[in-house]
């Protein structure tokens, strides 16, 4: 059924304009979640359970807590920390990864240390983060940076190292200066690998931000969820998780958009037969 629908999308996408194709694509993606949601609504209607409350109550709390102006404080606080931490990790990971990838002896020397450090989960550093930074923004941002830099760093090292030797020889033989070699060829070559690292890091960063807000914070989405649970506001707790899910989903869509933009040439190339 799904396959038939997908084939149909591709066909309509090709035959009619891109807009119609996109609408059909959205419909194909949405029918199952919509069905499950409806099922949830009817199954939980009039639920007497204390913990598994009715969807109508959850949606009511969701509207009050997360769609009103009151939501801005928590959402913005979480997103700002997430953005700061993730962008810092990306910058650090790509720059360090490029250096370690290009200077092979250095990369080989620090490789065991990196492997050890990345094996320590980011959230395990929460206690020391609390000691050093207290419960402020610095603690959360630095935890995100520490926890999510590794996939970016290691993928960048790999990507930079696997740049085609022929391309590097072309650059050498045409005396292209080092900064242009890196920006113009090494990084674009490594871009698919770097994007893989960024994608992994984004989900790690989201985990860390929620966790750090639950443990050591006075605002943010994670804080709101835990607070609701402590006050036995069960619908509010569920609504917080729902909000988290929606935000995570939107972040992923946003990331996919950025990825498609960055890798548009790579994608077009791979879609061309015989290349």
């Amino acid at each position: 059924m799904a396959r038939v629908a997908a084939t149909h999308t591709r066909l309509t996408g090709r035959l009619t304009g891109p807009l119609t194709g996109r609408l059909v694509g959205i419909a194909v993606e949405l029918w199952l979640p919509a069905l499950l949601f409806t099922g949830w609504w009817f199954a939980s209607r009039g639920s007497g359970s204390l913990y598994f409350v009715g969807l109508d109550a959850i949606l009511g709390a969701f509207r009050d807590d997360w769609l009103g102006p009151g939501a801005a404080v928590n959402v913005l606080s979480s997103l700002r920390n997430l953005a700061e931490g993730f962008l810092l990790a990306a910058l650090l990971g790509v720059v360090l990864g490029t250096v370690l990838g290009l200077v092979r002896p250095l990369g080989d020397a620090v490789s065991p240390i990196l492997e050890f450090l990345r094996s320590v989960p980011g959230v395990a550093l929460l206690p020391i983060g609390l000691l050093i930074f207290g419960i402020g923004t610095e603690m959360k941002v630095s935890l995100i940076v520490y926890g999510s830099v590794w996939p970016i760093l290691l993928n960048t090292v790999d990507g930079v190292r696997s740049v085609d030797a022929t391309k590097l020889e072309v650059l050498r033989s045409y005396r292209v200066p080092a900064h242009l070699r890196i920006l113009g060829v090494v990084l674009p070559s490594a871009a698919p690998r770097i994007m893989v690292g960024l994608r992994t890091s984004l989900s790690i960063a989201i985990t860390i931000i929620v966790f750090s807000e639950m443990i050591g914070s006075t605002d943010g989405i994670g804080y709101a969820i835990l607070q609701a649970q402590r006050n036995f506001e069960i619908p509010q707790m569920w609504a917080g998780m729902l909000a988290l899910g929606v935000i995570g989903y939107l972040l992923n869509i946003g990331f996919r958009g950025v990825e498609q933009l960055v890798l548009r040439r790579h994608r077009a190339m791979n879609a061309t037969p015989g290349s």
Partner: protein
Amino acid sequence: MSESLTRPATTTPIPVPGAVVPGAVVPGAVVPGAVVLAAQGVSKQYPVPGGVRAVLDCVDFEVVRGQIATIVGPSGAGKTTLLRCMAGLVAPSAGRVVLDGQPITEPPEGLAVVFQDYSRSLMPWLSVRHNVELPLRGRRLAKRERRERALGALVEVGLSGSGELYPWQLSGGMQQRVAIARALAYQSEVLLMDEPFASVDAQTRADLEDLLLGLRQRRGITVVLVTHDIDEAVYLGDVVLVLGGAPTRVEARLSIGLGPDRDQIRTKAEPEFLEIRSHVLAKIRAYRGTGQESR
């Protein structure tokens, strides 16, 4: 001509090609001029477990300005290694390569390389024009001048109007034309080509060979072309260097008296072409034999 053909194989350097092989220069052939590129006693060894493997042994030859010198030899004879030494990409273990009187220690400005594998030597994320502009990006050139040079080079290789396409949207032969345009835009005097037409079909190959002959006529560039195809070596070359032996030496150096105007059908049917061709083939067969025995 027959005199040069029966001349025994030699590894001694030949200072002025036309003069050493009397009778080889026929009317219309490239007049002997100044030596632009020379390999002087180039040897190359690679370390292998338990010793070294010698790839090149005291290779000597000279290329005269405006000439096409083709290097032909059995596969594994170190042709590519020799070209990489000449390009300044690897340093010879002994001897030196001299370009315009200057020993080469790193890739020099006066020399451009066209690699065999166009799909790897072009940057797929850059448009054709930007690929051609790539060697100019480090130079102090106005953006506009860079662009004009690139477009001019694309016209010369017959790719006007393809500048905004991407390499993977072009056929193999067209991609190699882009690589040639990139070398032309660099405006170096000497073009080094490593089996440039080995990965395209026969018809495209003939077209590209004729493109190269035309470029030499119009631009007066000097070309050193490595190939494993004897027909190609003789058809394109003013001078054919036959490599052979293990480690590799220059086993024969033949001046080709076919003149600058060559034609895929007419030239390849000329008795002289056929004679040289079978002569080179015989030499390569012989040296491939000795090469395998001594290994």
